[in-house]
């Protein structure tokens, strides 16, 4: 029999409804695994044990009474600690908010609660979703379950560690330049940055207003699709929220890929000397697998990564600086080293720089959607160019951003799904992105699920028994 912590959301949901398991048992298993692994992984800032157990009892009682709140009913999950949660400390992983207890849930937390989910805790992040991995914050950075001497990447670091380690099946993250997809790639999980405007960001502490996305990290593509069904939808309280219909995100799960034309942006990342041979080989193999599932795969060209990076980074730092301007002046010592060193340079950007960045953004968005998505249903490319980095590689001062090819789709707003493509020789996860047309997450999930089933990487999980035994 499959252990409770190994059940997917879909499997757990079926067993809950058949009366074979209870939410209370699922939640106790989740809390036990968190208690056993947290000293090793540092995935959480706050664990909400009592509330979780009470919510699980309520979820069981409702199911017994015939009240079914949907696919996440009774499922334990975690929220990145920038998601405001009523009555629960929300720190942004920063000393500046170490004691903040919001009065209201953010929209996504409210939707998950209404959907019957069981919140087990607030997952660690890089400070304000950018400054990390840092050891000078309120709790240490999350460690990679595949090799605890390595970073998870960030900034949804605790979310990725918690999912990869089987503490939860679902953890919500946020993605401004790749903060869902990078940790997903480096921790061997699935992570979706949906289309800009698809998931509300209201109540999630902003990093960059026009680049921020909220989204899930899970073990499987189907679980991501089930989560999207609960969290997607128009929110008039988020100015960027799109008033568009919410589709059935699971509609394509289980289908083959016949009839789809998929672009492979190979030269886009292969030309970068940082790209490891293992990442390139894994992507080439994934493209072959996808073609074998019935899709037509064609190589496509994108503008150079450096243009996307310049555009995205100037917007990100410019907007972040505006958010933090007063605190950077009045209490610089409250920030961790890396966050301060990322934010303060925003002061050297000019108004013209910002306007030119937004003009370039419009041009790049047009090129991607007109050049690639006029003829292709989706596109694949690398998520990260290398395996996860050892903590020892991070210098005293903040370094240039390298090795992640995710920010282009924050710039354009297209949906992008990261999922595992295998392992390096050292046994560390590698990943790819499946990028879709705006608001066509369903096709990216269809492709992801078909590839996932064919490739079989999801069945390989990190070995953490020694940590549990200790």
């Amino acid at each position, binding site marked *: 029999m499959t252990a409770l912590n190994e059940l997917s959301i879909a499997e757990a949901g079926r067993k809950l409804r058949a009366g074979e398991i209870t939410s209370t048992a699922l939640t106790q298993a989740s809390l036990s695994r968190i208690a056993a692994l947290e000293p090793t992984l540092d995935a959480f800032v706050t664990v909400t044990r009592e509330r979780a157990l009470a919510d699980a009892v309520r979820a069981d009682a409702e199911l017994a009474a015939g009240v079914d709140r949907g696919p996440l009913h009774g499922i334990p999950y975690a929220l990145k600690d920038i998601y405001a949660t009523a009555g629960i400390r929300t720190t942004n992983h920063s000393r500046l908010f170490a004691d903040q207890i919001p009065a209201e849930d953010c929209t996504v937390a409210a939707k998950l609660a209404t959907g019957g989910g069981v919140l087990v805790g607030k997952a660690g992040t890089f400070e304000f979703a950018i400054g990390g991995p840092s050891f000078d914050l309120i709790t240490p950075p999350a460690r990679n379950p595949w090799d605890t001497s390595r970073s998870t990447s960030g900034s949804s670091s605790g979310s990725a560690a918690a999912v990869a380690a089987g503490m939860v099946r679902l953890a919500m993250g946020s993605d401004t330049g790749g903060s869902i997809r990078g940790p997903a790639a480096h921790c061997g999980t699935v992570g979706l940055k949906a289309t800009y405007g698809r998931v509300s960001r209201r109540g999630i502490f902003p990093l960059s207003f026009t680049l921020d996305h909220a989204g899930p990290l899970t073990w499987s593509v189907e679980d991501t699709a089930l989560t999207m069904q609960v969290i997607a939808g128009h929110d008039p309280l988020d100015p960027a929220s799109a008033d568009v219909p919410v589709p059935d995100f699971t509609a394509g799960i289980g289908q083959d890929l016949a009839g789809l034309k998929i672009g492979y942006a190979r030269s886009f990342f292969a030309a970068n000397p940082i790209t490891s041979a293992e990442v390139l080989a894994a992507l080439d193999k994934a493209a072959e697998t996808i073609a074998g599932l019935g899709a037509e795969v064609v190589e496509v060209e994108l503008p150079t990564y450096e243009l996307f990076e*310049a555009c995205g980074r*100037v917007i990100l730092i410019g907007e972040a600086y505006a958010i933090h301007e007063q605190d950077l002046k009045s209490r610089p010592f409250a920030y961790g080293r890396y966050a301060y060193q990322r934010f303060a340079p925003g002061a050297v950007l000019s108004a013209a720089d910002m306007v030119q960045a*937004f003009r370039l953004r419009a041009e790049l968005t047009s090129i991607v959607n007109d050049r690639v998505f006029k003829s292709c249903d989706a596109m694949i490319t690398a998520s990260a160019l290398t395996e996860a980095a050892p903590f020892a590689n991070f210098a005293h*001062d903040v370094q240039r951003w390298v090795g992640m090819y995710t920010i282009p789709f924050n710039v354009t707003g297209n949906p992008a799904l990261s999922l595992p493509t295998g392992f390096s020789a050292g046994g560390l996860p590698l990943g790819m992105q499946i990028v879709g047309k705006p608001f066509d997450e369903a096709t990216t999930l269809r492709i992801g699920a078909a590839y996932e089933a064919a490739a079989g990487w999801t069945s390989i999980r990190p070995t953490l028994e020694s940590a549990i035994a200790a």
Partner: protein
Amino acid sequence: MPDKAFDQEITALLAAAGLQVPPDLAAGVYSEARDLRRITSLLRGPRTAAAEPSNIFSLARYAPAGDAK
């Protein structure tokens, strides 16, 4: 190799913004600032004066009832 004149310009911009950079954080701030300034040159491709930015605001939500969307 840091350019001294360029660093003086960064110092002036940080001061004008009202930031007093803690000395032990200065190296990282200047390194990041230099790199940010470097990449701003990539933003300035050929484009017409009429090319509007992507975040141009919209009044659609304030349209008379029935016309919104």
